[in-house]
């Protein structure tokens, strides 16, 4: 319970930290938050075990922290540090970390599930008792790739759990206005798999549903779709002031905050004292202070690192068409010059 709470709080505090850093111009590019949805990510991430893989959408920081991801990695990533998991080459949570069983998304929605299928397929082929879990917005569920991924996972009976996060919004558009689906669990009918609905803001309910679905997958019984009912409490990204959201709707969901709800529950039923929770929050703040200082002291990658890592073999890395020094032009471009060094060092 304590660690669940810690994860929930860490998720929120880390995102708030990022928001502060964003406002101070320390974050490079955009920032996407999961305010109000932390319970879904944390509950699912917590239900996974060693060796399993998770593929988060951009709003599932909590699942990554539950996998044991160091908050510093998140700060490094958002500030494009040289030592970040993507070495400054990609943003947000677009990292893949095999040791922690994390498959990063890419921006085109729906694609990630298809790739996670391949991970699950490798488990099936190798008869390993490992399973996969991924998240998907209701908006993303309208993409062709999402459909193909779900259909393939179902057809090949892959050990996978798909968490459909019905958070009412996709970017600046209310989902009901661009999707005729009434019951999101009905989506499962197109794939012939079971679906279960949960209150996505109740971390224990989420955890239970995820654990059960994962057990099912682990037993070789295939995919489950979990529909998590939740709400996106902020705009799509940091730059989006969310002016289009009815104040009343927001207010109603604020009453159902997943972290405050869990706090109340823990205290009310005597699982934890208010002061223990307070201590956890303080600990987290201290940890994040330290992490922030550490990461901000790190630097961006050296410019010519841009040239490295496109290919896995020296042969391709060295051929001139990856912008090598063209014979006769050695004197010309700084980049051509850099290239020679970079490929030798970088691969």
């Amino acid at each position, binding site marked *: 319970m304590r660690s669940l709470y810690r994860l929930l709080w860490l998720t929120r505090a880390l995102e708030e930290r990022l928001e502060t850093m964003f406002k101070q111009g320390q974050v*490079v*590019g*955009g920032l996407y938050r999961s305010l109000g949805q932390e319970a879904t990510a944390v509950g699912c991430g917590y239900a996974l075990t060693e060796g399993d893989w998770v593929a988060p959408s951009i709003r599932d920081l909590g699942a990554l922290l539950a996998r044991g991801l160091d908050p510093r990695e998140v700060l490094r990533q958002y500030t*494009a*540090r*040289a030592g970040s998991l*993507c070495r*400054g*080459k*990609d*943003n*947000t949570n*677009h990292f893949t970390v095999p040791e922690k069983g994390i498959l990063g998304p*890419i*921006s*085109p*929605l*729906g694609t990630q599930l298809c790739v996670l299928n391949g991970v699950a397929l490798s488990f099936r082929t190798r008869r390993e008792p490992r399973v996969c879990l991924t998240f998907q917005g209701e*908006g*993303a569920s*309208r*993409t*062709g*790739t999402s459909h193909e991924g779900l259909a393939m996972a179902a057809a090949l009976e892959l050990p996978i759990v798909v968490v459909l996060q019905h958070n009412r919004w*996709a*970017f*600046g*558009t*209310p989902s009901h*206005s*661009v*999707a005729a689906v009434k019951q999101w669990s009905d989506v499962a009918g197109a794939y012939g798999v079971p679906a279960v609905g949960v209150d996505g803001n109740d971390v224990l309910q989420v955890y239970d549903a995820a654990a059960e679905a994962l057990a099912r997958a682990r037993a070789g019984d295939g995919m489950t779709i979990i529909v998590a009912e939740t709400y996106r409490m902020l705009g799509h990204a940091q730059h989006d002031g969310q002016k*289009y959201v009815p104040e009343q709707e927001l207010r109603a969901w604020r009453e159902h905050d997943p972290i405050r709800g869990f706090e109340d529950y823990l205290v009310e039923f005597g699982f934890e004292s208010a002061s223990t929770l307070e201590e956890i929050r303080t600990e987290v703040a201290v940890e994040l202070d330290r992490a922030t200082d550490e990461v901000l002291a790190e630097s*961006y*990658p*050296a*410019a*010519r*690192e*841009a*040239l490295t890592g*496109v290919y896995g073999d020296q042969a391709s890395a060295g051929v001139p*068409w*990856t*912008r090598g020094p063209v014979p006769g*032009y050695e*004197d*010309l*471009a*700084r*980049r051509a010059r850099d290239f020679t060094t970079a490929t030798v060092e970088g691969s």
Partner: protein
Amino acid sequence: MPETDPMETTYLGAIREALQEEMRSDDTVFLLGEDIAAYGGAFKVTEGFLEEFGPDRVIDTPISEAAIVGAAIGAAHMGLKPVAEMQFIDFIAPAFDMIVNFAAKSRYRTGIGAGLVIRGPCGAGSRSGPFHSQSVESYFANVAGLKMVIPARAYDAKGLLRAAIRDPDPVLFFEHKFLYRRVKEHLPKDEEVLVPLGEARVHREGSDLTIVTYGAMVYKSADAADRIAEEDGSEAEVLDLRSLRPLDTAAIVESVKRTGRLLIVHEAPGFGGFAGEITAQVCEQAFEWLDAPIRRVTAIDTPVPYAPTLEDYYLPGEDDIVAAARWLLAY
């Protein structure tokens, strides 16, 4: 001198105006895309359009680029003039099949054309990482049946978009997001701004070297040319292609025949990029006039990286253009 608007119009504003004017004058023109109606579009290009034109003409769709382009094709078959927005041009990739196989080949196969526009923000420079920064023109360069446009100025953004909407064929209209709010111009008030597809434009005159370019690189090329003029006294002509399909080969060839030297600059990576086609055309049509090899300055052959240091390095820089131009001039 024609009267110009005392207020400056941004590149983005010019796109808004083009859409507005075409929608006002032709009620078969309509828009579809993600978050374009109630929200007004990710870049607010269509803000207020829903109120002015109503939900039949400004249509929010599910997140489904293939279906968006598909619906545009069908509507075009029926005589409507759809303008489909890709929220970022990177997301044209899921609609690739629909574009190259359905839209591009429709007229040839069946005699029924698909006059539609697919527009969206392309290009790097805004720290947006590999999936919100791409230049995608080469994906479509070899596809017969498509037209492809990429304006550098507000004037051209407006004029070409209007022409694209009126065009009987599928037009890919790439807007460089780095220019959206940075480019500002006084647009003429009393003349119609309409730029035909397929005509290049001399952005800067010169007689010693031809720089062929398009999109955001027009400005870097012009800056490089100015620097060379100032520091070396040589005059580079900067030709802004504006359209890639149809390509204004005649204008390129004419300029190269005058200058004898050709440098091609584009933001996409070099290998397999559009510069190859330009090179081939010039080799075929103006080889005898060349006094030096044809050179290109492009992005490096990698995805678009995210960190500022990396992205700046990725992009062709003014220095790179100056260096290549000097090399050619000294040849």
